[in-house]
Every structure is written in C-alpha cells, then in structure tokens.
C-alpha cells in the first residue's frame, strides 16, 4: 500500500482509540470523541445546506486532524478544509528570490529551517547554499543577531511566519541589534487573508476554526470584526482532537443558528485581549502593506513590513536587491502546482495529478509539500482524506 492510499483512522468512522499510525497517540477519551462527532452530525443534519464548509487556518490543526483521522469521524455533509495557514507556503516566490539574490551576492542569509527548501523562481535557499552561498538555519531571531555579533560582514535575517514569529522579530529589532544586521521581512498577518478567502466566489466558508496559537498573541477579540465583515462565525480552537471536535461542535451550532459570534474553545491559552506586550512590540516595528500571498491572491494589509522608523534595519533599504537574473528560469512543473487553490480552500491535495508522484516531500514542486505545516506534506504523511 503506498503512502497515498493510507487511510487515517480507518474507514469505519468509529474511534477505536488509535489514530493514523500504528503507534499513534491514543485518544484519551474515545467515548467523548464519538459523542462529539455524533453531536456534529446532528448539527450538520439540522443545517439547511447540502454541504457545510468549515475552514481552519493552521498547519498544526491539519496535523492533528489528519493524524487522528478526524475527517473520517465527521459526517459526509461537513467539509473541513485548511485555508492559508502555512506561513512557509504563503511566502511569495519573489520574496524567496530576494533572499536568494542576497545570498548569491555574498551576504550571509539566516532563516528558519522550514524556508530552506521552498522553491524560488529559479532556486531555493538550499540550492543557493549548495552553490556556495552562506545560508544558515537559525532556530530563533535572537540566534540570527548572535551570528551578526560575531562577524563583521552583513547578516540578513529572512523573517517569515505569522504573528507568533513576527513578535520575536520585532523584539530583536527594538533590542538594538549590531549595525551589520538587517531584516528581510516576509512576515504575514492572517486576519485579512481570512477575509479575502471567505469572499472568494468559488470558496465556501460557513465558519472558521481559528488558530489557538496565533490567538495567544492577538487575543480572540481580534476576530470579532472579521466575523462581522464576513458574516461568518469563528471559533478559536486548540490542537488536541477533543479540542478540535468541541470547537467544531460549537461552530456548527453557531452556523445552524445563523450567529456571527466569536467563541473561544481554547481558554487555557487564549484570552480576549491576548499578549499585549507582544502586540505592542509587533505594531511598534511593523505596519501592514498589500502584497501577494503565494498562489492565493493579492491581499490588502496582510504583509508585515518595517515602519519607516526602522528603515535602517530593513534589508530592502540597505541593499539594492536584484532578482532579475533569477526570473524566468523555473521548473515547468510549477505552472501545474495547485498549492494556491489548496490554500484558498478550492482544492484538496488529492485533486493534484502530481501529488505523491512528481511532487513528494523529497522532491517538492510547491511549497505546500515542503513545510511540515503544508497541507500536501501533511496529507502525504498521514494518507490524506479517506474515502467515506
């Protein structure tokens, strides 16, 4: 049986206490999980629609959903899809090109390990490194600063991720880094992207399951405006199977009742106001700007860029970055990649002809197969959506 055919959780839709893998973490309370799944089925049946679509926006949610085979427990009429929730995946190709161009120009480029293999137009950072460029993986923005402190040459931190990594980047910038340190920001801000995706004509979103970890920083109150504007209920959810199922049940009730409410199903980590010191730091350093989210859309106010006051730390100000030599030499397979459609909730990885064939974690065509938070890599690992 190939990886692609593996069916997480078994085909029966019944929780037996084991998830996808043979030694997978057991449900601590299978009875409760089954009861929640039944409740979800009742609610879906009570909703006057052929299909109810719930979108979540977090790679860790998808890992848990795929690992425990939660989709196989849920009713046919409920579609649970991952939206633009993988920061590595939404980093636009020209942004990767900027980092590659800097590395090839002799600048030391530091970045999170997940970014190393993300394809740029003609090459990834790892390929640039193989060709002799100085590209280093760091675990933390603080580590990038430490590298800069030890050398005289220019060190750029290629900063990616959502609010949870943007706040640490802001902290090292306000902390007075050495003069040879600068930041190439590809940080992204999720709420505007949720709004754009919800409004896409070919994407159905009846409710959002929002990510509990990002909300640890932003607070759940942030989503009230979004719920209002998209006329969509939102529940902030945790990452255990029971957390996710309970979040879904709460969300389905709101969908049934036509509520546009924001609910917090993860109160052990998320408060209404969130982590205020981290938010203050983030907005002190960053402001939002319109920009591309790889393969999804041009999204207003969803790219985090350095404010003018911090222009001296911006790699885009400091260097004349020329990505022109990198353009137009990419793989033709990339044109067939449907990563963008997957992140917009319009398609599943299994809708792609290259999934598990030309495109694998070892030889990824698109970013969704690169990151451990990418939908394609997660489905490839856990066997994807079972046939119901």
């Amino acid at each position, binding site marked *: 049986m190939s990886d692609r055919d593996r069916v997480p959780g078994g085909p029966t839709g019944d929780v037996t206490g084991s998830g996808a893998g043979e030694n*997978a973490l057991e449900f601590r309370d299978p009875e409760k999980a089954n009861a929640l799944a039944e409740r979800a089925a009742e609610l879906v049946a009570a909703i006057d629609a052929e299909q109810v679509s719930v979108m979540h926006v977090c790679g*860790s949610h998808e890992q848990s959903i795929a690992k425990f085979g939660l989709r196989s427990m849920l009713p046919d009429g409920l579609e649970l899809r991952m939206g633009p929730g993988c920061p590595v995946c939404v980093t636009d190709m020209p942004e990767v090109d900027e980092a590659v161009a800097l590395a090839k120009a002799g600048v030391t480029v530091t970045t999170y390990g997940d970014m190393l293999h993300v394809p740029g137009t003609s090459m990834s950072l790892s390929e640039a490194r193989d060709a002799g460029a100085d590209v280093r993986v760091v675990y933390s*923005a603080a580590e990038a600063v430490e590298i800069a402190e030890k050398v005289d040459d220019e060190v750029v931190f290629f900063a990616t991720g959502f609010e949870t990594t943007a706040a640490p980047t802001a902290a090292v910038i306000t902390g007075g880094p050495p003069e040879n340190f600068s930041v190439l920001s590809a940080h992204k801000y999720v709420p505007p992207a949720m709004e754009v995706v919800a409004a896409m004509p070919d994407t159905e979103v009846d409710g959002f399951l929002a990510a509990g970890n990002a909300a*640890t920083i932003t607070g759940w109150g942030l989503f009230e405006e979004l719920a209002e504007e998209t006329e969509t209920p939102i529940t902030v959810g945790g990452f*255990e199977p029971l957390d996710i199922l*309970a979040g879904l049940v709460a969300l389905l009730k709101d969908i049934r009742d036509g509520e546009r409410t924001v609910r917090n199903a993860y*109160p052990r980590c998320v408060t209404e106001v969130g982590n205020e*010191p981290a938010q203050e730091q983030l907005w002190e350093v960053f402001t939002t700007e319109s920009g591309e989210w790889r393969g999804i859309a041009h999204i207003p106010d969803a790219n985090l860029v350095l404010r003018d006051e911090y222009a001296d730390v911006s790699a885009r100000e400091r260097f004349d970055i020329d990505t022109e030599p990198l353009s137009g030499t990419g793989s033709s397979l990339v044109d067939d990649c449907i990563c963008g459609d997957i992140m917009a909730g319009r398609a599943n990885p299994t809708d792609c002809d290259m999934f598990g064939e030309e495109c694998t974690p070892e030889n990824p065509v698109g970013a969704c197969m690169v990151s451990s938070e990418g939908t394609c*890599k997660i489905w490839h690992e856990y066997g994807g959506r079972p046939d119901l």
Partner: protein
Amino acid sequence: MCLGVPGQVTKVNGLTADVDFWGVEKEVRLDTVDEPVESGDYILNHVGFAIRRIPESEIDETLTLYESMMGGDPDDMLREDLIDEVEAAGSTAPESNDTPANGDAEPANAEDAEDLLDELDIDV
C-alpha cells in the same frame, strides 16, 4: 514551528531567563512574555522567546499534553515538530520519567472546551 514548548524558569537575568526543558537548560528571551515571570514559573517558549507565562493551574495539564504528544510513533510529524522545537531550545526529547516536575499529573482532557459546550447548552 507553530506550537511552542513549555519549560520551567530557573533564573531570570533581566530580559532573558534560564529555562529548563526536560532536563536541559536554555536561555530564553523575555521580551514578548505576557506577564512578569520569576524563578519557578513555567513559560511557553516559541522560537526562543517566551510568549506566555503558564498559569499555575494549567501547568500539570500542559506538561502532560506535551509529553503525550512527544511520545508515540517516531515518524509522526506533530511529534517531530515538537521534538525539533525542544531540541532546538537546547533539550532532548523527554524520557518517560524525567519530567521537569509534576510528573504524576492527571491526563489532559478537554475540560476547557466542555465548559464552552456547557455554556452553549450542548450536551455530549
């Protein structure tokens, strides 16, 4: 890179702290933490920065949850991500009896979410 890892603060040095992650110490920045922390507190570490002081009442549950997620199938991605984060934070994966503290905690459960369901009058 998403979830973060809990550890116990052993010493605060201004804007950084020494934090114990299952037996190995690592320096963690305190710039982005939500509440003041002191020695003995538990924090949630994310990419080398504390993003949350874990309230006393949630320490047992949080540690148990992470330990259970880090056990199990060695090929598991969620486990891999967490162990990567712990290792990057300076530690090794926890051994079954080598926990920072509170090793006898009750299994984690979904009490939080249950409270919400109660509030919504959803009976499961």
